């Protein structure tokens, strides 16, 4: 997702304002964070990041009035609001109004789901690149495997992590380890090395099976065959993977036609082969 909240919130308790009771501070921070805002609890020394364009200062000001603020360098839009007497919900509503039309992701409406590579484990074998049908992976200028299109990744689908022989692919929002980033044990590595077969299954046999089944279905039901039946055929073939929790149902439902799957799998494999061929041979 490219939406970018270059807008952040500073909960200010320095000179000219009241210190907040801990329970109120907690309720305000929790409400804002749960709505997707970053909150600094800092004094005057707060640091701004490059790219940040506006900062909203929230405080219970001594005289009940928020001061007019201006960034001497004119690099950032500064504003302040007095929040005395406002409930946490009223404060988050106020912040939403101040953000105005600046775009932002919303918790609950979108889940950050994409592979994260542990480069201390990755051997640049490109199996993940050959496996992924959705063009999530690419190759950097210096020939390294890279996650390039994380928006293409299918939410809740950790299938590519099971293809990696080095257990180098993580999905931090996944429920269990080592995919969620837990330390990798020797038994994880052994198990994942066996699972490489899945890559062959998905890259070849499975698609061949899909086509065979589709051909069978064509002969048997040529008159009545329709798109939903074709989908049902694909679903049957993938049940086993789904049973292992590796491919969620909505991803199955969004798989392209077997022909398109074949085309994409070939293109991904060619990209991986080209990257491997261009890579310098490993130093002894």
């Amino acid at each position, binding site marked *: *997702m*490219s*939406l*970018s909240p270059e807008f*952040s919130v500073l909960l200010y308790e320095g000179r000219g304002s009241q210190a907040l009771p*801990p*329970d109120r*501070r*907690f309720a305000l*921070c*929790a409400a804002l*964070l*749960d*709505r*997707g*805002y*970053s*909150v*600094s*609890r*800092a*004094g005057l020394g707060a*640091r*701004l*990041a*490059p*790219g*940040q364009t506006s900062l909203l200062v929230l405080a219970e000001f001594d005289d009940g009035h928020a001061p007019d603020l201006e960034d001497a360098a004119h690099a950032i839009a500064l504003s302040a609001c007095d929040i005395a007497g406002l409930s946490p919900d009223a404060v988050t509503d106020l912040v939403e109004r101040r953000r105005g039309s600046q775009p932002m*992701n919303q*918790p*609950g409406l*979108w*889940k*950050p*789901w*994409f592979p*994260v*590579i*542990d*480069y201390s484990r990755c051997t640049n074998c490109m199996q993940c690149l050959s496996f992924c049908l959705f063009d999530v992976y690419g190759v950097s200028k210096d020939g390294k495997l890279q*996650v390039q299109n*994380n928006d293409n990744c299918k939410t809740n689908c950790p299938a590519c992590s099971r293809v990696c022989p080095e257990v180098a692919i*993580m999905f*931090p*929002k996944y*429920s269990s*380890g080592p995919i*969620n*980033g*837990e*330390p990798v044990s020797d038994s994880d590595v052994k198990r994942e090395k066996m699972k490489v077969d899945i890559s062959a299954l998905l890259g070849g046999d499975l698609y061949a099976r899909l086509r065979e089944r589709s051909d069978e279905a064509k002969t048997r039901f040529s008159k009545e065959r329709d798109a939903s039946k074709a989908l049902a055929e694909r679903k049957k073939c993938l049940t086993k993977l789904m049973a292992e929790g590796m491919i969620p149902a909505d991803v199955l439902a969004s798989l392209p036609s077997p022909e398109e799957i074949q085309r994409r799998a070939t293109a991904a494999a060619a990209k991986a082969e080209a990257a491997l061929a261009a890579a310098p041979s490993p130093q002894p």
Partner: protein
Amino acid sequence: MSSPEPRLLYCRCAYAQVLPQDVKDGVLHHLCSAAHPFESVADLCEMSARRDPRLAELASAPLTIIACHPRAVKWLFHAADAPLPDSTEFINLRTLTAPEACQLLPPPA
């Protein structure tokens, strides 16, 4: 000269809640009861997905990150072109209870 005290960074995991609610609430409450300033973000995964430039700013100084598994957090920063310094410390709210995590933080004021 002693090195500066690490900044505290708390991740709320707001976009898909993999951290237990009682643990993240207990730790946030503790942070809000201490005199120590801190940074809190809604979701480091969401920031990494957008390559938020604030991650590079956060990674530019000593940091203690209160989030999930250190291996995931380290490579999430890396994915956003914001590699963390080797000195970075982690408090893992996916494995610790709230009291265990709070013991590793500055005490309440």
